[in-house]
Structures are given as C-alpha cells and as structure tokens.
C-alpha cells in the first residue's frame, strides 16, 4: 500500500502540471495551510471533547453523551453555538487590541503545527531550526493573552494578563533549556533529523537519567506554558472569574479556548518527537509500513496529552509566588545542572545506543 | 464563679447595677448607659471575671425603650452573664461602643445599628451592614411599617 504522504511535494507536483512554478508553489502553500487549518480546528474540537470525557471519568461522571453517538458531536455543536452568539464587549475597551488578541493567540499556535513530522514524509515545512522555531513561536501567544487582558477594561482580566506575562516569561526558560539538553545528544535542531537520530533508541532511553529529568521538567514547564491547571493562574476561576478572557464571548472566546487545546497538543507533540521518537515505532516493529508512523506519533502525543489532563484534574492550583519559586528555585537550577550532566554523558559517550 | 459571687463582686464596683435572675438561666445585669463602657472593660480585664468572649449582641425594641443585650462568656472560668442597657430616647439612641474591648462587637453593633438605629459612640465604621445606605427606617423596630412587603397575620 502506497500513500502519498509527502504532501508538500505531491501537491506542488500536481499543480506544476498546469501552471508556472512560482504560482504553483504559492498556491501549494495556501492549499496546505487550508488543509492544516481544517484538520486542526477539528482536531482541537475533538481534543476538547476528549478533555471533557476524561475529566468526567476522573470525576465520577459520564460526560457529554447527548449529541451524536457517545456525545462525539458535542463540541461541534458547541462551536456552532459559539459562532452564532453575539459578540459582547465592554465600554471603553481598546477595541483594536481587544479584537486583535484572540487572533494573536490562535495564529501563533497554528503556526507551530507546521513543523511537526507526522511521519517521515508527512511534514509541511521541514526547516533546519525546527526546535528553535517552535520555542520562538510559542512565546508569541502570550502577547495575545496580555493584550486581551489589558484591552478588555476589566480589572480581573488585567490581573490575569499580568500573571500570564510573569508565568510565561519564566517557564519559557525551562522549556527551552530542557529541550536544549536533548539537543546535546542529537546535535541538530531539525525535527526530522532529531527523529532520525532516535532510530538507535528513543532519546529518553539514549540520554537515560538526565533525559528523564529533562522530560519531567519539560512536562511541568510545558503545562505551565499552556496555562493549564495546576498552573492556570491566568484563569484561576476561583480567584479571577475567568481571568484574561472574562470579557470575551462567542467566537473570540472560542479562539482562546481552541488555542489552549492546540497548545496542549503542541507541547505533547514536541515531547513525543524529542523524547519518544516521534513517528518511530517501538523496536521498529512497523518500520515496513511507513504511513503507520502517523498512528505512533498521535498515540504518543495523546498519551502525553492524557498525562497533562490527569495533572489538571488532580492537583490544586499553585499561588502566583509559588509558581515563580518553583521555576526559579527548583526547575531552573536543576535544568542547568542537568545540562552539565548531559554534556558530560555525551562527551564521555555514556549514552545508551540500542 | 457562681452567680452570687459575681453579683457580690460587681456590686462592689458599682452600686447602681440592677441584678435580675428571674426568667432567665443566666445572671442578668442592667446598667445605666453612662456607666456601661467602664463596666464592660472591667468585666473583660478583671482576672476574676475575665469575660473575654462576647458571643451575642441583641438589639431589642421594648416599646417605649430601645435596648441592647450583651451575652458574655469567660473562656477561662466558663461562666456566662448578660448585660443590658436601655434608653428612652427613640429618636437618637446612643450607647458607647465595646468594639475596642471585643473586636467582634464591630460587626454585631453595625447589625444592631442597621436594624434598630441604635448608634454607638466611637465606633470605627458605623454604617449600614445589610441594608443599603439609602434605606429609610429601621426594620426590626416594632413601629416599622412597610405596607408593600410586610405581611401581617
């Protein structure tokens, strides 16, 4: 069975048949962007459903089960409802920034999706600074949150926005450093190459102790990056009502909501790629069928997403100063130590190669 | 301390106190508004009485008079007494605050002020607690009329 997975090339080749090269490559990009947009808005909605189901099962409930079989269409119905809802706002809000903020958040999270290798070939955009690109893009989202909180002329929203600024700036460091630790092994920032290196064993195995520490730090910092409990200071519904998106309604609210879930997917996908070998199957059991890589990739990603949901529905929220204590007193020093340890291990050639 | 001993001790401080034991399980003491604050601080500070727990402040409209009833308990000796003050002045009833002696009196006195219109001298923040600032009248007084909302059986 042969499926054309190298979508960029396939589409471009198809278009080249009947138009000049320049137009074809631009059109190909547009088409791919639209495909990604369609796939991931649906995937985001599905993720919301998964979250609700998982939350229900943790909480002795059943979860959505009315719309469609087993409630599968529940979030679609919610999205339809949100589209049809009135967009409310506050008096004296800074309307330009207020309207801009949700797009900042959603666009930045959709942009990050471009670089993931779903299989060896299913990758929209394989740049040589993949990890760097991801880290850079993921910090743009916080601008949207800050703008949204600042512009909506609501005191609770402003406090939420300030918290978000503090939180994201701090935890960016840990995300970056823990990924840097792993790059010491791979020696490359390109995601496809990072996966390639792991054919000798996933990086969490290759790097053993420091890799496990880096993974734990990454998961904690990643959860904080997405503003999810136990780090949901930004929303903190028992303190700030709804935090930065208090004043948003309808589709603008939905963008924030969707972005949170796509971000969660991104964080998990990065972890799956960097620590767990991306689309590689364990021990190469399905190497002969390359398109199965999609399932391995998604399987690993969803397992990590589930872990983040498990965190969310178990732990209490930290206080804002404890959040910073955790980062600056625990995660950052550990991370720096960990890098030195990893460097030593790589230098001495103590990595485990299967 | 027994009620008799309390009575004896307190009459040695102030001879104008009225002691009533009829119709109540506690020792009731009626005090004049002028001596009220001094008596209360004495009750708190004296080591034999040491009434450090003010657990109930009740405003009461006795028809002609307005009064406030204070229930006091000692957490060391575990005895309870009831102090009562009254005034004839329905227009402008005023007593001394005890919120400097017991911090809980702050809220309780605001409640009494809210519903009975009894003012407390030197109270740090005497304003309506439950009702809005514009509310007219004092609802728990017996002569309060609200023809719309009150249903009389």
């Amino acid at each position, binding site marked *: 069975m042969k499926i054309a997975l190298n979508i960029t090339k396939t589409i471009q080749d198809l278009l080249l048949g009947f138009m000049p090269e320049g137009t074809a490559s631009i059109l190909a990009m547009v088409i791919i962007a639209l495909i990604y947009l369609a796939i991931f808005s649906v995937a985001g909605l599905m993720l919301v459903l998964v979250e609700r189901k*998982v939350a*229900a*099962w*943790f*909480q*002795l*409930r*059943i979860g959505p089960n009315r719309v469609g079989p087993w409630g599968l269409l529940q979030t679609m119905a919610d999205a339809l409802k949100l589209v049809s809802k009135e967009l409310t706002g506050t008096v004296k809000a800074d309307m330009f920034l207020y309207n801009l903020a949700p797009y900042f958040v959603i666009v930045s999270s959709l942009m990050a999706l471009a670089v993931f290798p779903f299989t060896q070939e299913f990758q929209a955009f394989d740049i040589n600074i993949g990890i760097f690109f991801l880290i850079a893009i993921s910090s743009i989202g916080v601008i949207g949150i800050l703008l949204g909180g600042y512009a909506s002329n609501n005191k609770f929203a402003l406090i939420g926005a300030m918290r978000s600024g503090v939180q994201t700036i701090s935890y960016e460091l840990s995300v970056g450093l823990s990924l840097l630790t792993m790059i010491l092994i791979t020696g490359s920032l390109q995601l496809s190459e990072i996966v390639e290196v792991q054919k000798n064993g996933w990086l969490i195995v290759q790097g053993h102790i420091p890799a496990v520490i880096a993974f734990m730090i990454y998961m904690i910092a990643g959860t904080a990056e997405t503003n999810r409990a136990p780090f949901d200071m930004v929303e903190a519904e028992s303190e700030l009502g709804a935090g930065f998106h208090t004043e948003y309604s309808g589709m603008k609210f939905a963008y924030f909501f969707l972005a949170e879930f796509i971000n969660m997917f991104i964080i998990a996908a990065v972890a799956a790629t960097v620590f767990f070998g991306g689309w590689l199957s364990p021990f190469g059991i399905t190497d002969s069928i390359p398109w199965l890589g999609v399932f391995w990739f998604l399987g690993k990603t969803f397992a990590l997403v589930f872990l983040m949901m*498990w*965190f969310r*529905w*178990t*732990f209490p929220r930290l206080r804002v100063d404890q959040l910073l204590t955790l980062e600056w007193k*625990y995660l950052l020093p550990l991370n720096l130590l960990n890098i030195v340890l990893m460097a030593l291990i790589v230098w001495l050639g103590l990595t485990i190669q299967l | 301390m027994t009620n008799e001993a309390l009575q004896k001790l307190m009459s040695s401080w102030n001879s104008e106190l009225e002691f009533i034991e009829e119709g109540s399980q506690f020792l009731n003491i009626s005090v004049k508004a002028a001596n009220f604050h001094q008596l209360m601080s004495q009750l708190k500070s004296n080591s034999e009485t040491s009434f450090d727990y003010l657990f109930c402040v009740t405003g009461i409209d006795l028809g002609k008079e307005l009064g406030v009833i204070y229930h006091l308990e000692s957490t060391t000796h575990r005895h309870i007494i009831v102090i009562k003050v009254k005034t004839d002045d329905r227009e402008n009833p005023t007593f001394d605050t005890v919120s400097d002696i017991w911090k809980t009196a702050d809220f309780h006195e605001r409640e009494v002020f809210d519903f009975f219109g009894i003012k407390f001298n030197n109270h740090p923040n005497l304003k309506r607690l439950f009702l809005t600032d514009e509310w007219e009248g004092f609802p728990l007084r017996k002569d309060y009329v609200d023809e719309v909302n009150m*249903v009389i*059986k």
Partner: protein
Amino acid sequence: MSYFGDIYKGIKTLLSGMSVTGKVFLNNKNNAITQQYPDNRETLKMFDRFRGEVVMPHNENNEHRCTGCQKCEIACPNGTIEIIWDRQVDPETGKKKKMIDQHIYHLGMCTMCGLCIEACPTDAILWAQNYENSVFDRTSLTKVLNQPGSKIMPGVED
C-alpha cells in the same frame, strides 16, 4: 539534603494523589454517581416519605376526608393553604355541618415543611411523591385539592 528531599517528597505526594484519581478513572464504567435524569424517569423512584406536593386522596366514590377544620390553614407558615367553606345541611343527619367548598393549595408558596400534614386530624391531606413540579405559568401552581363534586367521606369527624 533537604533540597532534594523536598523534591522527592513533593513528587511522591503528587503521585499518590494521582493514584486516587487514576483508580477512579480506570473504574469509570461502574462508579458514575450522576443520574441520567430525563432518561431515567421510569426507574427513578422517590422514597415513601418524599415531600413532593400536598395532595388530598379521594376514594372511588369521589369522597375525601377533609372536614374543613382549617387546622392546616392555621399551621401553615406561608399562607399556602386557603380553605373556602360553608355550612350545609348534612342529608344523613339533617344537621348543619361545616363543609369545604374549595381546598386551595398554592404550590408556588409551599416550603414543604409538612406542618399542615402533621396538623391534620383526619389524615385528609398527604404528601405525593412527584418531583416534576415546574410549569410555564405560575397560575397553574395554584391547585384546588378537592375534586369537583366531591363529598366528605361518611363517618369522618374532627
């Protein structure tokens, strides 16, 4: 070292917390505590003593046990019950007797305290176990408990 000891202890408590929720998650089929309310109308059974609303049972001859003594009306704290009564000649004994015309019950004002049913000397009113009392128009919450044309059961005296 207490720095690393703290981290270790912290992670341990977090994991033990996750084990609690994890167990519930794995067992999710059996331990849902919520009710599928509109779907389980058939099986949803209220307890015998459940206070749904006040009703006046009638027997097959359209007779009730209310003598119109108004004790329930007095016992009610909220004015939920109003009794319109009359003195009529009892056909059996030929004496004038107090009889109810209408026993009016305002469900919208009822707090389900049960004092009326306690007060009733002839057990004329009882609790019903129905639990769906919401209506679109509150006028339909005012109910007349005795059925039209009903009479007092013979032999019931207060």
